[in-house]
């Protein structure tokens, strides 16, 4: 019978093929910085002019992010992040972020491996049952801009779940907004780094977007 003659390719095959042909965006190129609350308006204005969403204006977002880790004996803990939107209907995002590679001076951005997966809301339950434990969590509220492949977020980070329910509002981490410039790209597209550096240069006096070494912060 003809119906069964051809091999039926499985999803797994398709995936491994995609991995081999480097079309899966699994590298995140990242620059980070911050801006004081007082001058965030300046930055937003500048971004409005620089970025693609001129006609629609910046996209506001309000997300809740939980960082969990899966600990196994004699191995490094696997960190997973779950992010969900608090202001609109969107699937939850499950995200794996690998070790950040700083690279030498010639490398314009931080590079880290990243797997971004949209999933249903059961993901928290799933991870908890799997043995993951919550490390920390926060909410961030701010604006997102796009410029080509680049994503620019300007957001305020808040602590969540303060123990006293009567407390007023969420407590911000600092008096600044976090500014992140990132691109999710397949492996081997390092050229994007230069593009990002050029863009960061345009924001220069307002925000210093830099590679920030996590190890030194610890």
């Amino acid at each position, binding site marked *: 019978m003809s119906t069964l003659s051809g091999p039926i390719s499985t999803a797994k095959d*398709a995936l491994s093929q995609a991995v081999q042909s480097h079309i899966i965006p699994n590298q995140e190129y990242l620059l980070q910085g911050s801006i004081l609350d007082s001058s965030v308006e300046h930055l937003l204005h500048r971004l409005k002019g620089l970025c693609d969403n001129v006609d629609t204006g910046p996209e506001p977002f309000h997300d809740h992010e939980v960082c969990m880790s899966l600990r196994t004996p004699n191995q490094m803990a*696997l960190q997973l992040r779950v992010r969900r939107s608090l202001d609109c209907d969107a699937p939850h995002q499950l995200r794996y972020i690998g070790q950040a590679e700083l690279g030498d001076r010639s490398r314009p951005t931080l590079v880290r491996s990243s797997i971004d997966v949209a999933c249903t809301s*059961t993901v928290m339950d799933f991870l908890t049952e799997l043995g993951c434990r919550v490390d920390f969590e926060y909410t961030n509220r701010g604006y997102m801009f796009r410029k080509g492949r680049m994503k620019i977020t300007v957001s305020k980070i808040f602590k969540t779940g303060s123990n006293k329910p009567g407390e007023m509002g969420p407590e911000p981490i600092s008096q600044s907004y976090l500014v992140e410039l990132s691109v999710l790209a397949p492996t081997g597209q390092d050229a994007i780094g230069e593009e990002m550096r050029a863009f960061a240069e345009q924001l220069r006096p307002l925000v210093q977007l830099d590679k920030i070494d996590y190890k030194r912060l610890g």
Partner: protein
Amino acid sequence: MGVTVLQPYSVPEGQTGPQTIEFLAKRLLALGAVQASTFIVDCETFIPNPQHGTPKTVHVLHNSEYPASTFAVLDTGTKQVPLVADALFDLLMLKMAPAHTSKKQTKIESKGARFEYGDFLIKLGSVTMAENFKGILLEVEYRPCVIPSNCWELIRELLQGFLGVSIPATIPPYFNTPSIMSMNHPKSSEIFNPNHTKQNDVYQPMDTINQYLEHFGNFRKQTMLSGGTGIGAPLRS
């Protein structure tokens, strides 16, 4: 997205699986169905390394009907946690690999031809586990309808029509379990109804996956019980 019902079909005595499938396909074509490509549903099971105590297996399934998705079910023994995610979830699963390993010989899949008959979608799947033929699993989807209990009669009539066997009038037991989704459903607390089972809920792609998982489980058990020889045994779960 419509309602899907899975129906195992036992291979008659003295016939091989491919023969039976061909026979069924001919009947479908005679009925006026049109073949529209093929399908595959595969299931891989990850079990935790022994030192991790409690057995929590993770089943990862793919359905060619939803090519961009990966379905995962975490089985703790007492309850099942479903998860639907992007296909990239497979890569994430590899990252978790140290904690869970895949048992290759339990990889099971159902694949075959896919027929369209009016608004029905009929799939003739031959189930193989580690390349061994295990049985036949029919999938019937009625796409316009979203409530299982509404269209069970329709599907039953269709099944009886082309299988030529009588199908029990009651809806398959899967649909009588309390709906996992409905427990989380916001209205469940407002109009709490103990009889609110899956059959009265809006059908989800996850329900198809759960049914496959259930039937795959049966096939596996049967393999273990009969030592892999029980091909022709009736499979009424």
